[in-house]
């Protein structure tokens, strides 16, 4: 039982969150700049492919670029795999919550936002991505469930990477981060097949099965990802506070 009452220093402070962000800048600065440049570059390439190439050529290129953006986001946690100073990071005079806000915020909010800025801009300018175009390109009907599932899937992959990186010894942090993303993706693919099969078994398979039930399937998968995200975040927060 803690015999000391919580002093003002031990309450969450925005100033200290800014200091923790500053502390991690030597780790993240290059990535932040690199990711911004890369996301604009990829967006430019997508624009070029979409505007000037025939659809048969453009679609695989656009898919490839989308996968590249997804991979960049998923592996963003690798930046914390640096083999230095784990003890002093744990002992950094800030609350575990403040460190978690910075580290998880970097992986789950900052990097996704950076990678989305060009897409958001082009969407806001109304020139490139309309619902119809995305649906046409990727062969799916874009609805709320698909969007939510896609976002949660990427977030959960990124958090898997972070969890593995933080939770393993310095020597294997990078390797385990990469393996975690691959492992999580394969598990999710398996879960996706399982959920689809399960619903098909209950409802009966028909030619219009995906049209009829895609929303249900994606909702179930989004829920699975959502639960996993909460679990992974709790685990990450714990490791960030106390170390391995």
């Amino acid at each position, binding site marked *: 039982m*803690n015999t000391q009452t919580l002093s003002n220093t031990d309450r969450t402070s925005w100033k200290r969150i800014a200091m923790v962000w*500053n*502390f991690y800048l030597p780790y993240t600065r290059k990535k932040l700049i690199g990711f911004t440049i890369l996301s604009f570059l990829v967006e430019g390439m997508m624009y070029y492919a979409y505007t000037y190439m025939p659809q048969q050529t453009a679609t695989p290129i656009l898919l490839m670029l989308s996968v590249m953006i997804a991979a960049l986001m998923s592996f963003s946690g690798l930046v914390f795999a*640096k083999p230095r*100073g784990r003890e*002093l990071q744990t*002992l950094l005079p*800030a609350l*575990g919550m403040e460190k978690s806000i910075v580290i998880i915020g970097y992986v789950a909010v900052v990097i996704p936002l950076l990678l989305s800025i060009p897409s958001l801009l082009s969407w806001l300018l109304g020139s490139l991505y309309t619902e119809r175009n995305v649906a046409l390109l990727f062969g799916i009907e874009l609805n709320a469930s698909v969007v939510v599932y896609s976002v949660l899937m990427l977030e959960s992959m990124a958090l898997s990477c972070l969890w593995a990186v933080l939770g393993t010894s310095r020597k294997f942090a990078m390797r385990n981060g990469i393996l975690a993303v691959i492992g999580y993706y394969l598990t999710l693919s398996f879960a996706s097949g399982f959920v689809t099969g399960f619903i098909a078994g209950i409802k009966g398979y028909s030619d219009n099965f995906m049209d009829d039930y895609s929303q249900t399937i994606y909702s179930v998968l989004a829920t699975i990802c959502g639960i996993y995200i909460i679990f992974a975040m709790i685990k990450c927060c714990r490791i960030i506070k106390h170390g391995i």
Partner: protein
Amino acid sequence: MEIKLENISFRYSSKGPMALQGISATIRPGIHLLMGENGAGKTTLLRLIAGLLKPTDGRCLIDGARSYDLLPSILSKLFICGVNVDFPMKSIDEMVKYHAPFYPNFSEDMLRRNLSAFGIESSTLLSDLSTGNAQKAKLAYALSLRTPILLLDEPTNGVDIDSKKQLQRMIAESITEEQTVIISTHSVADLENFYDAVIDLHTGKLNYALTVDQILDRLSFGVGPEVPPDALYSEPWIGSFRFVLVKADEKLTDIDYELLYMAARKTKLPL
């Protein structure tokens, strides 16, 4: 600041052996020598005090707060430095820019002074320094943070003889009376004659935790051509003998830490 160890036990895995067992002590400001053989639990104890490990039993309190709670108010007053503690930044300059702002007592003047005493540039990458020089740079930085609690784990590892003397002088100059410094070492002769207290661990148990004055109240140390018949422990030493006796008179002697260490393991001392 006061560190209170309340019946601390620790094991690294649930079925593994106890690394520490039933350690109780109150550690007050001063320079404390934490000694013990390899595997005695010195590093484990320092990590428990820092809050990097959670005691299996008991608790470690720093000014009444559990160290494992890792409260910023405590963390900003504590720093651990040692060969197994890597710095998170590439150079001391980066540490000053990104890490030191968390420590309100940090003195850049002291850092520059300490680094120049060792002849080390703050901008040099730590990875470009030799093991000994990197250790010296880390120690110079650790001292300049001026935290009320400073835990130094084997600070003289990899440091040459000349630098050990410099380090001793630096610690003596940098440390104030209000600071609690615990220096863990298995080579007790490295930084002699400036400790205020001794904590002796043996196979995970506390042999004793006493101030130098308390030890000298009970024991005296001597060197002579013959071993006195009432010596508690003796060993040959450069053509003569050095020995430990129960203190019988008011004559002042210096502590021979190496002899004290050996005597505590070979015989039962009245401590």
